[in-house]
């Protein structure tokens, strides 16, 4: 399927908007967080995106933005960028680990460093920082205190 045709079909989905073609095999689309669950199921089951490459979290000061990268593992190597805007006071979104198992640690990393809560994640705990760390350090409003400990 052509990328333009693919994006056009996906834009028909409930809650989808801003469909565009970035490069010859890379598409981009925005989705509301309420519609994300059914949208991702469609993406996996009907369009055959079988690989979740990356989940990035961006702090835009007014809110958070999640950027998912999905790809189809074949010769064409089509990729799709999915953007989800989240409000700052409730940064929650549905987990996609039941669709793509590889998203597990990506979601844990986004939770660890940026404080995005993924509803339905089987084991949402810190992955990079030690347990008991206070706060989410990649947020713009994170205040760092120099920690000193005697030996």
């Amino acid at each position, binding site marked *: 399927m052509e990328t333009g045709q693919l994006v056009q079909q996906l834009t028909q989905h409930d809650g989808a908007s801003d469909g565009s073609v970035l490069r010859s095999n890379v598409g981009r689309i925005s989705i509301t967080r309420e519609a994300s669950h059914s949208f991702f199921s469609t993406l996996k089951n009907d369009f055959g995106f079988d690989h979740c490459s990356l989940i990035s979290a961006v702090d835009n000061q007014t809110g958070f933005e999640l950027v998912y990268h999905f790809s189809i593992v074949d010769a064409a190597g089509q990729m799709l960028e999915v953007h989800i805007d989240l409000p700052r006071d409730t940064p929650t979104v549905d987990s996609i680990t039941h669709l793509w198992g590889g998203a597990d640690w990506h979601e844990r990393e986004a939770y660890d460093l940026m404080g995005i809560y993924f509803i339905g994640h089987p084991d949402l705990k810190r992955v*990079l*920082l*030690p347990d008991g*760390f206070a706060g989410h*350090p990649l947020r713009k409003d*994170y205040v*760092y205190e*120099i920690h*000193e*400990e005697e*030996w």
Partner: protein
Amino acid sequence: MSRQQVRGNPRMRKGLGSRTSDPATMMEDPPSGDWLTLRSDQFLNWVDDAVYNIAEKTGIRDVVNRVTRPIFNWGLRYSPWPLHLGIMCCALEMGAAGGPDHDSERMGVVYRSSPRQCDILIVNGPVCEKLRPKLKTLYEQMADPKWVIAMGECAIGGGPYWDSYSVVAGADTFMPVDVYIPGCPVRPEALMHGFLTLQKKIREKEPGYFLRR
């Protein structure tokens, strides 16, 4: 040699019994019947009573020290075995120092993989909060006498990550460091010079005692 001059963590020694010949605190006789079974602290107390205190009181220890000190010190000096531990990019320079160009093995620097067999802990990279307790455990697992080399800016003072949320500002904030090697990364020649500096320090500072406590 007073107790303060003994290297290592004094807290590690607290559990080792009284170590004195005072009869009030001396070890009780084990109950008859199973007198062959000694706990480790009982054994150490027995060694103190039967060997150390006698050698100390009779002056034998000083005499033997005078003979063995040069030999033991020579042995310590020319076999400083570091732990084969790589944290970040300075570990590659450590590998280069062990390679055929520089060949640190000609100075007796043989990398070992177990902390029980090592004398030197080379901290060759930034120590993050998650690594710090593990590194301290490695240090405490090494047998005395032991030394620590802080290799590179990150191990000395945190380097470019000194005010990071997860990196400890220097290895000497949680363990005693003997030799600091600046550089980012440290060149293999500098690491060799660090080993030679440590040799000099062992020659001057380390007694190499017979019957050390």
